[in-house]
Structure formats: C-alpha cells, structure tokens
C-alpha cells in the first residue's frame, strides 16, 4: 500500500470494519479495492467502511466503492459507509448518488448498529 492511504481492518463478530486513512486516487484505488475485498470474509454479514479519516476520494475511489457495494450486494452482504457531516468528502459522495447504493452514516455507531 502506498503512503497515500492506510487500511485498518477490524473484525467484530459478524462485522468487518475497515478504516481508510488518507487519500484515495487513481494511483491506489485498485490496491484499495483488492485490499478491501481480500479483507472481507465470506461469512461476514456486514462491511463497514469508515471514511472518517479519508481526506480525499475521487471518482476512482468512488468506483471502487460502487463496485464493492455491488459485489457484496450480490453475496447478500451489507455494506455501510461512515462519512461524518463535517468531512469534506461528504458533498462529493452525495453528489454522485452513492448514498442511493450504500448508506452514508454520519457516525460509526450508526453503521455498526444492527438495524
């Protein structure tokens, strides 16, 4: 993984929590994708991607999220994103309609909570 972004993977019961720190652009988007895919076990019910510390996510990163969501959806696995209100990337994510595909929670607890 390049220095731009860092992944923290945490397993909580049937949850998989991935924290993305740093920036995601076309130079590391593919890496991010394979890392995230590799980190989600088949038996995990839900994947929570915490973008609280992601300061940059462009269309390449978005694509990754979209694709991942689609893949997980096909496997009947849930995916949730955590993007705080004050996060600068929120507007971009909302703009692209990601929210329609993946829930954009404002707080981690919300994403972790079973609905």
């Amino acid at each position, binding site marked *: 993984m*390049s*220095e*731009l972004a860092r992944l923290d993977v945490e397993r909580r019961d049937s949850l998989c929590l991935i924290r993305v720190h740093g*920036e995601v*652009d*076309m*130079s590391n988007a593919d890496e991010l994708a394979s890392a995230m895919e590799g980190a989600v076990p088949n038996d995990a019910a839900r994947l929570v991607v915490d973008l609280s510390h992601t*300061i*940059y996510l*462009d*269309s*390449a990163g*978005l*694509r990754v999220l*979209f*694709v991942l969501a689609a893949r997980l959806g096909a496997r009947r696995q849930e995916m949730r994103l955590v993007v705080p209100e004050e996060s*600068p*990337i929120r*507007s*971009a994510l909302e*703009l*692209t309609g990601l929210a329609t595909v993946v829930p954009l929670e404002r707080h981690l607890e919300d994403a972790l909570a079973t609905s």
Partner: protein
Amino acid sequence: MEPGAAQDRVIGPSRGAVPSRHAGRRTTVGPGLLTPATKMLLVAVVYYLAARLSLRLALVEENVTPLWPPTGIAVVAFLWFGRGVWPGVALAALLVNLPISTSALPAAATAAGNSLAPLAAAHLLTRVGFRPEIDRLRDAVAIVLAALSSMLISASVGTGALVLSDAIPGSDFGPAWAVWWAGDAMGVLVVAPFLLTLRLLRRGARASWARRWEAVGLFALITVVTLVVVRTELRILFLVLPLVGWAAWRFQQRGAAPAALLVSSMATWAVARDFGPLSEGTLLERMITLQAFNATVAFTSFVFAAVVAERMRAREALERSAGELEDRVRRRTSELSGANEQLACEVAERKETEAMLRERERQLAEAQHVARVGSWEWMIPQNRVTWSDEMYRIHGYGPQQFPLTFEKAVERVVKEDLGRIRRNVEAVVRERRDQDLPDIEYRIVRTDGAVRVLLGRGKFQVGPAGEPLRMVGTVQDVTDTKRAEREHRIAETLQRSLLPDRLPEIPGVLLAARYVPAGSEVQVGGDWYDVVPLPSGQVGLAIGDVAGHGLRAASTMGQLRMALRASALDEDSPATVVHRVHRLLERLDLYEMATLVYVVFDPDTGTIRYANAGHPPPMLIPEDGEARYLEEGLAPPLGAARRPDGYVEAAAVLPAGSTILLYTDGLVERRGVSLREGLDRLKTEAAAAAPDLDSLCDHLLASLVGDEVSDDIALLALRPVPLKGQSLHIRLPAEPHVLGRARQTLRRWLREAGADAQEIHDVVLACGEACANAIQHAYGAREGYVEVHLDMDQGEVRVTVRDSGSWRSTAPPGGGRGMELMRGMMDEVAVERGPEGTVVRMRRKLREGAPV
C-alpha cells in the same frame, strides 16, 4: 747584359721624328736630336781624323794600311744614322785620298770604293737582321762575313786605282790588294764592334766594384802582355788569346770588343814599326801573320763573346722561364692547397652531416619506439615493402628480420580487417592520383599470439601516367589506448546515467544542482546527489561521496543512490533512511567508504530534518543574515564503523526565501588549505546575495574553484518560495503517482489564498479529476505532461488544466463520474478539445475575498 738587350729591334721611326723619307728603314737608331746635316758632318769629321791617324800605320807607299779603322767607322755610321750620311763618308774619303793619290781621279775612285764598301756591308747587315749588341753567334758571323765580302769592293777599287795611276807597279797588285782587303776587313772587324759596344757601355747596368777592378786589371794585363808579345823575338802572340777570351767570357762584347781593338791596334802598330815577330819576312808574309793574328783575335773576341752572350741569354731565358715555372707552380700549389683545404672542409662537413643524419635516424627510431609508431613504405611496381625497426617489433619480429612484399606485410592481419585494407588500397589505386589513404584501424595477431589493434595512416603516390607508384605511411599500436578509452567511456556513461538528468519540478520549491567532474585525466569519481519527491509531499535531498575513482566507485555510487531512493520512499525519518543505506552497504559487501547527507524538507511546515554520515555539513543561507552550517545530526561515514550507535537526525527551520545548500568536499578542500578555512570561505562567498539559485551555484563555483579541478564537485540547493499572492503553475508528468503531491501543493496554495477546508477540498477534487482524466485519456502509452494553472482573481479561483495529448473517446467502464464531480465542485467548467490537446477551465468563487 742590360735589361734592354733582349728586346726586339725598334721597327719604324724612333722617337725624335726622323724625317719621313727615312721611314720604313730598319735599324734607324740614332739620336733624334741630330739633323741629317749634322750627322753627315760628324761622320765626315770622325772619318777624316781616324783616316789621318791610321795612315801613319801605312805599309805600302803610305796607301795601304794593315788596319783601316775608317771602314769600321763608316759601317757603324751607316748602321746608326742610315745610308743618308754617305755624302759625309764620301767627302771624307775623298779628302783623305786626295793627298796620297797621284791625281784626283784615282782619289775619287778610291773614295768611291771606300764609300761603297761600308755601305754594302751595312746594307748586308741590315738585311740579315744584325743586332748592334752582337750578342748572338749569327750576329758575329754576319759581321765577319759582311766585312770580308764587302771590303772586296774597296780593296779592288782602291788597288785598281793605285795600279792604274801608276802609284804601284802591276806586279804588286796582288799583295797590295791583299793588304788593302785585309786592312779594310780588319778595320771593320776590330773597330765596328768596339764602337757598337760603346753604346752598350752607356746603357750598361751599374757594375759592382769588384767587376770594375777586374775589368781594369784585365785590360792592364792585356796591355802588358800584348806589348810583351809583339816586341819579343819569341813567337808567342797566341798568349794574348786567353786574355781576350777571358774578356769575352767575363764581359762579353763590352769586354771583347775593346780588348780586340786594343790588341789588334798594338799588333798593327808593331808591324808598322817593325817590332817583334811580325817584323820578319816579306810584306806578304807579315801581312798574313798580322791579319791572321788580328782575325784570330777578332774571332776570339767577339765571336766568343757572342756565343757567351747567347748562352747567357739562353740561361737567363731558362732561368726566367724556370722562375715563371716556379711562380706558376707556386700559384698552382697554393690553388691546390686551397682546393685541398676546401675539400678537407667539405669532407669534414660531410662527415658531420653524416653523423648528424645517423643521430637523427637513431632519434627517429627511438621516437618510433617510444610512441609505438612504425613506418612503412611499399614500392608498388617492384612489390617491395620496407619497414622501420619499430614496425617489425610491433608485429613481434626482431628488427629488419626479413625482406617484405605486400603479402608478407599483411600476413598477420586478422582476416576480417584484411578485407577492409584491401578495399581501401583498391579504392585509391582506382582513382589514379596522389592522395591520402583513409585512416584505418585493424587488428593483427602478434607472433606471441596477442591480438593488437593498430591505427594505420598512409599516403598514395602515382607516377606520371597515373599508375600506382608508392605508398608510405605509419602504423601505431593503439591497443592500450583503446582499452583505456573504453574503460573511461564506460565509467563516464555509468556515472552520467546514475546521476539525475533533470531535477523534478516541485511547485513552491526552487531547486538547483551542479556537477563538475574532475579533469578528464582523472577517472570518474564517486560524487552523487539526488532529489526525491516523497509521496507525503515532502522533498528528500541527498548528497554523497564514494571514495575512489573509476568503474568501481561509480557502480557503488549508483547502488547507494538507488538504496537511498528506495528507503526514502518508505521511511519518513532521515536517520532511519541513512541507517538502511548503511545496512545495504554492509550486506552487499561493498567496502568503499562513503559519506552521505540526507535532508527531508516539509513544504507545509517549512522545516527540515536531516542526518549526516561523515559528510561536510549542509549550509543554511537565510534570505537576510549570516549563513550558518547545520552541524548536528552527525555520524561516522557509511561503511566506516562496524556497528554504529545509530544514526541521528536533527531539525531546522527553512523559511521561504532561505536556501539550504548541500555540497561535496571538492568545493571546500584545496591542497594546502585546511578544511576549516575552506568552509569559512564558502560561508563568505555564500553571503554574496544571489537573486536565484542558479546564479548562487555559479558564483560559488567561480569563486571557490580554480582552473584545476582535482576532485569532483557536486552542489545541490533548495529554496522554498512563498506561493501566497502568486499564481500557481504546476507541470506534472501524466502519471498517477504525481497526483498526491500535486494535491499537496494545491492545498497549500489554496490555504494561502484563503480558502476554507471545504473549498480546498472541492477545488482540489475538481483539479484532481481533470488531471486524472488527462492522465487516463490524453497520452495513451506515451509520455506527456499535464499543466495545472491556478489563479486568484477578485476572490475567484480560476483553474486551467491543460494537456497536449489527443483525447481518446473510450471512457472507462463505470467511470465518467469525473465530469459530474467537476461540475459539482466548481461554479463553471469549460472543456476545449483540440488536435493540440485539451484545456479544461474551471472557476469557483470563494466565500471570503482574496487575502493580500
């Protein structure tokens, strides 16, 4: 002999202008002062006087005298004054004869005869070329014959006149005639030579006193002896002869004639006075004796004198010619010796030249040997090749080992190269004119098996018809040079390839670097530098120095640089990076000692962190104020300590406008100058304010480095410039990995422009998308650049993203959100696509106004 005696007769008129009617006559000798009349008178007077004197010696009736001097006088007068004086002679003769003749007629006849006879004698003498000096035998003989023959006339006429005039009886004709003839003849023979020699006496050379005394003594002796012999009863007249002979021998005519005259006169006088042995017998007998005696004396005297004179002249001529010969010989000898000297000189010169030539030859051979150059000559028609000694040696033979033809000369050339040589030769031969052969490198196999590379040069010469005549040239063994050159080239190439060929463009940061290699005689060195833009947006600077030269140092340097790069991209801490490089050095068993400084500059915070492994300290040059060295963070050089305690790092602030300078020791180390002094000098020179980094570097090199560069020098300088207030211009290679850094710069600029966090993010995202588009679509597989330009205009951020590629139409699957994002983030987006490239222009108004 007088000097004039050997001259030829004077021919033609003498000085003194003898009148023209005498012109053409020979032997006109005579004082030009006397007029003809005077001469006649003189002759007449002398003749008369002499005649009167002589008559006293008469034997026959006072008419006939045994010695008649007037004939001699007349002959001499004719010889001296010419025939024109005959009236004087005739007159005088007449006057003489008149008293003693019976009548005028016989007197006249006698006179006529007495005039005619001398005239005839003179004429005869002149005809035969008689010389008055009587210094030749022929002259002596001539005068004798002339006298004897011409006096026949006078004797006959005179005696005839006497008989006819009854002065004497006819029976006495014979004796009278004999006496007359003898007397007249003797008159000539005795008197004429004497008179002629009087002239000689006048012109004679000064005789020495001894000679004079000799002459005097001799004549005295002659006188005495003659007196004795003519008066004594003994018949010893002949005793006079030796003395006369002596006179003739010693004094030639000048002695002989007077002596003869003296003796004859005395003898004649003796006869006339009836003395001595000449007084007995009949008149005829006495006459015969007397005449015989006189004749003998005359002969002895002047004939002998003439012979002696002639012999003397001959000897003189011989001596003269001998003298001339000697002169000539001497001259010739000196000429010869001169020529000989010259020859000797030339020979010496020739020897010197030869010696010089030989010396030159030796020097040439030596020079050839030292330079490993051999010379060759190929006489083409004869197919004869001549090699210099060195040429043989180059091929591995002994000098002049064997004679050569072309084939033998190229025997050892490697086959492939031989083809080239032959083609070159054929090419020039075809052109049929004088020209230089192209230089050719070819290989030979020496006799010891070594392959050597030779450089051949040559000239080709043709004869008058363009036929090949001669080739001449040199060959140099360049094997070692080529090897060295090759090695040097490799090292140079390696080093050059290991140094960054250009510095990265990092917005907001000025960079400058210099690399000055040492002089080309020194091999390439181990100095290096590098600028590593880090993903975090920070900038890594490194400079190092590997000990040693040549390929080894260059390759170590390359590995160090790569190691540093790799570590720098992974590690944030300079100390750690340096440590990792050191570990690599250890692990690779590279034992070279190397120094290294590694600096990390954070554009956001304006600080630097650095670690120094044994290298000269980096220098911080503030915008104002004194430069100082960053002397912390110090550790031993790489590879020096086996287990260093650990590399340390230190930090410093690098405000915008100040400069950090890294350099190698070539800049500050000089022979004879301590390192401290060099560092002080560097500090001094750095204080000279330079407007930009390039002029700073140039100034430092110019002032600190002289002409001779004995060690490599590397310089690296970095200066942060404030972005605030200026437009930002970034030029990025169209590659994904540059995006992170670019975003850092954009963020900084936007921050300084007064944008808030959201605005910063939005603008950066829009730019990022535009750049990503360009990277993805513009260039395909080619290299290219993306230019990003940010401007602030009245609170509005204006962005221009430009590429010079051609836009590919295919959009990536699932992509295409870029445009959506750009439009969402910016107030306005405009895309211009063209064959020259694509330009994306975007604008976003910031909430707050543009700060100053």
